[in-house]
Structure formats: C-alpha cells, structure tokens
C-alpha cells in the first residue's frame, strides 16, 4: 500500500496534469459563466419594451409600474434558473473532465516514463559479475535516451576497468605461482629421491635459486607498478641523460654477450620526478631494447630537452613488430609473439611500468614500429 501511495514521478505528473486542467478549465468555464450572466443582466429596458410591444394595446391600460414589476420578476426568476442550471452543468463537466485528464495524464506519464523503469531495472541487475549488460534503449533521441546512453558508456568504462584488473590479477598470480611451483617440485623430488647425490642437490639448489630470484624480481616489479599507479612520488631534480648512462653501464654484460652495437647520444634532459621510478623507467626501456634483439644487432639511446620537455628515445633492431601488437606491449605480462612471458630474465611488466611511471609524471610513452625493432619515446615535463 505504501508503494502505491509513494509520491512517484508518474503520480505527480498525473496530478500536475489534472491541476493544470482544473485551473485552465475553471478559468474558461468561469469566464463563460460571467459572459452568459452579463448578457442576461443587460438591457433591462429593451426587454421591457419588447414585452410591452408584444402585449399590444390591451396591456397599455395596466399600471405601468405593476407591469414592469412582473416583467422584472419573471426575468429575474428565469435568469436565476438558467444560471443555476448552467452552474450545475459546468461543475459536473469540470469534475468529469478533470477526472478524465488525470487518468489520461497517468497513462501518458506512464508511457513516457517507461524507459526509466528499464534503466532502473538494468542498474539494479548490474553488479561486478555482469558489468557487460547494457540498457541499449531504443526509441526517440530524447532526454531519457541520453540518460540511458550515458549510463551505458559508464558501464562500458567500468567493465573495461574491471576486466583489465581481473586479467592483471590472473596474470600476476600465474606469474607468481610458476616459480613457486618450480621450487616446490624440485624440493619434493629431492626429498623423495632414493639416492640423493651431491650433484643432484647442487643442481636442485641452482634451479631453486633461479626460481626465487625470479619471484623476487617479479614482486619488485609489482611493487614498483603499484607505487607508480598510486602516484606516490618523491620529487627531486633528475637528468634523464644520467639515468641512461647508468642503465647502459648496468647492462654492459648483456650487450657484450649479444655483440650489440650501442649508439648513445645523451644531451642533458633535466626533469623533476621520482628518482627511483624514473631510473626504473629508463632501465626498463634499455633492457627491453637489449633483450628483444638479434645477435649482433644495434641499440640507439638518445636524450634531449625539446620544447620545454625532457625526452628519452630508445630504438633497437631486431624482429619487426606488427602495428596491432604495439598497443599490447604495455599490457602487463604480454610479450612480443607470445601471449605470456616465459623468460627467466624479464618480469613481463617492463613496458607496463614505463607507461605507468610516465603517466604518473604527467608524461607519456609512445611506441612506434618502423619495420625493424621498436622505437620507444618517453616525454616528461622539463625542469
């Protein structure tokens, strides 16, 4: 019962129609009532004359005063009767019409508001589990459609955000589980082996060590990503050229092993930002270029200050990348060619971290595939 009497929009609209009609109809009928009454009141003398004229000479003998009195009284009585009837008819008509207009208003409002209940029903149904549901309201391009479409766009954004979160968690848990599985299996096998030799134990220890270094690196990368995504920055002046020099020095062994040619063009590129995160950013770009390369290939690293911005560009040779793959490279745990990382060296988060750190500093990462290898450009606000 409470639900029925709830002051719903539909009820209020219907009431509004009824009141509007009541006022409009009342004014109209009132106006007409007064016009009729006025015309009945006017021209008392003319009426008298007409009556005298019709009565003819026979009536001329009568006392004028008495005759006029009769006429006036008759006239008054007729007028009152007519106006009473009119009043009754008007009141009845107004009541019926108001009731009809309220009913009509109720129906029309219900019809106009039906899309709203669709929107409400969808909003009620949608939860984290079925964010892919949409209202997809059909019908005229009106305010309600606009509302429904806006709601749909919001759902799409939420859906995408939740989906990427879910896939990130799934990938991260997969990546974390893999080294754990290796460690556990190695240890289980060693414990259950019938003849444990020193060589077997040393081999096991090496695998276990490798796996634990890998999970350590992964956890570090995840923490870096989390910190950068949170925008938790300790700002200080930093020169990207210095960071690039450090990164190149750190990876010198791998450069040597791969017999890579390195071209470094490091002009000062001062910026203000979180030293540790920016160091990670530059190091990841350089590592990426060195590791996704061919034996005897090349790597080019340059830094510069351009148009008040600090830029670092890292390019490398190596296998060509299809342009559709480019967007995927910043997706966590995605790697060229394969769906997932399998390498012991990388965390699979390299470019995701670069992208996140660049964004946290108000800069951006741009990737280009010029037909050979990859060109990664990061631009940050200059100091």
């Amino acid at each position: 019962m409470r639900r029925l009497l709830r002051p719903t929009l539909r009820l209020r609209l219907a009431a509004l129609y009824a009141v509007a009609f009541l006022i409009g109809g009342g004014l109209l009928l009132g106006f007409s009532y007064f016009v009729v009454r006025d015309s009945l009141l006017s021209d008392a003398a003319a009426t008298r004359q007409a009556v005298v004229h019709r009565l003819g000479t026979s009536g001329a003998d009568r006392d004028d005063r008495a005759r006029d009195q009769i006429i006036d009284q008759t006239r008054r009585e007729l007028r009152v009767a007519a106006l009473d009837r009119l009043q009754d008819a008007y009141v009845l008509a107004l009541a019926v019409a108001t009731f009809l207009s309220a009913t009509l208003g109720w129906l029309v409002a219900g019809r106009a508001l039906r899309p709203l209940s669709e929107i409400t029903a969808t909003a009620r149904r949608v939860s984290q589990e079925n964010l892919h549901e949409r209202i997809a309201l059909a019908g005229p391009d009106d305010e309600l459609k606009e509302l429904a479409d806006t709601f749909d766009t919001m759902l799409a954004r939420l859906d995408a955000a939740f989906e990427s979160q879910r896939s990130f968690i799934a990938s991260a848990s997969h990546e974390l589980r893999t080294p754990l599985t290796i460690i556990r299996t190695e240890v289980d096998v060693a414990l259950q082996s019938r003849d444990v030799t020193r060589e077997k134990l040393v081999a096991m220890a090496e695998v276990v060590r490798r796996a634990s270094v890998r999970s350590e690196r992964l956890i570090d990368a995840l923490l870096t990503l989390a910190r950068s995504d949170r925008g938790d920055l300790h700002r200080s002046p930093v020169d990207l050229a210095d960071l690039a020099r450090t990164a190149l020095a750190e990876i010198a062994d791998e450069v040597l092993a791969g017999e890579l040619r390195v071209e470094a063009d490091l002009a000062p590129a001062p910026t203000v930002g979180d030293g540790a995160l920016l160091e990670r950013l530059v190091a990841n770009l350089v590592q990426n270029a060195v590791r996704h390369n061919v034996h005897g290939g090349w790597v080019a690293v340059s830094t510069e200050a351009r148009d008040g911005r600090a830029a670092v560009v890292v390019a490398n040779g190596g296998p060509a990348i299809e342009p559709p793959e480019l967007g995927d490279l910043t997706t966590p745990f995605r790697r060229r060619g394969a769906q997932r990382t399998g390498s012991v060296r990388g965390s699979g988060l390299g470019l995701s971290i670069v992208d996140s750190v660049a964004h946290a500093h108000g800069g951006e990462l741009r990737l280009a595939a010029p037909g050979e290898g990859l060109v990664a450009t990061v631009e940050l606000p200059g100091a």
Partner: protein
Amino acid sequence: MRVLVVEDEADLADAVARGLREWGMAVDVAPDGDAALLSLGVHDYEVVVLDRDLPGISGDEVCRRIVAGAQRPRILMLTAAVRADDVVDGFALGADDYLRKPFDFGELVARVTALARRQGRPGSPLLQRGDLTLDPLAREARRGGRDLRLTPKELAVLRVLLEAQGAIVSQEELLVRAWDEHANPFSNAMRMVVMALRRKVGEPPVIETVRGFGYRIP
C-alpha cells in the same frame, strides 16, 4: 609406463620429468603445443601431463586433439589458474584429471599412476605374479615379503612385464614403454637392466627370455 610432460617452463618440466623417472616411468618432455603434438604422433603414451597455459598451440587445443585422436592417452591438466570455472572447463575439454600449481609432487605421482591404471583394467593398484608383487606408488617390489630395492629403471621394466599378465613383452615394446625418446635402441642397456633385475629377484628365476623376441613372467 610412458608419460609425456608438456610444460613451457623448462625448469619445471625438467623437475617433473626427473621426479617421474624416479618412479620408474619413461618420461618425454615437450616445451610447447607443437612439440607435444609431434611427440604424440610418434609415440604411444599412457598419460600426458599437460600445462594448460602453453605458448603457440594452447594446452586446450592439445587436449582437444588428443581427445579427438585414435590413441587416447589419459590427460592430467596442470594450471596456475585459481578459479573453479577453469577446472570445470578443463574437464569439459576432456581432461581426465586436474591439478593446480603449485602441487605436491607425491600427489602428482599418485594421480598419474591412478590414470595409467584407469587406462587398462580397473583393479588393485598392486601388480602381482606368483610371489612377486609391485606397488608402483610406494616404489616397492617384494618377493615373498623380501624388499628387492630396485632402481627406477628396473622398476619400470618389472612393471611392464607384470602388466602384461603373463604375455610376452617384445624388446621393442619394452624399449618404448620403459625408456624415453633419448634411449638408444642399439645399446644393450635393456639387457643389462633385465640382468640386474633377475639377480635381485633371485631364485627360482621368474623372468623368461623368449629368444629373439622378448621377455615374460609366466
């Protein structure tokens, strides 16, 4: 008993293979889906330990092809996924069993052994012929209550001979089922193992040589 381990993580594949060999299984390793299908085309396996997340041809696809194939080894799926949906999906694809990473190695062995048993006749996990018994899970062979203390390879050979239930096992079959793809068919490793096995089993001898053909335990 021959097992194919399909796993892209080299360290993990290696550890699993080494472990299963300790239980007297002949184990081959395939690092991706393509290699797995290649191995499956060449050898008969009793059990395939299949990682679901493989580069290239996915574990799901490999599973589908195994199920569609004429040879139908049992499939034990491994996955790092945590959701129950994933397990249900795996079974829907035709996997016979499912194990989540990280797993207990003892459990893996138990499941692989159970799957291999399902391959043939149902029955006791204990293999027996006369007074000779073999418990594959415990890796224990006994003759009249005496523990024979077999090496993994001897265990593998004895298992194949006992599973034949008195039938003759050809040298080729023994090679295929007790050795992996790295075995050299021209070496006399098999003769050496059978010899060692005979010595451990003791008197009276139970392993017969069928000259020019193979062996049997009548």
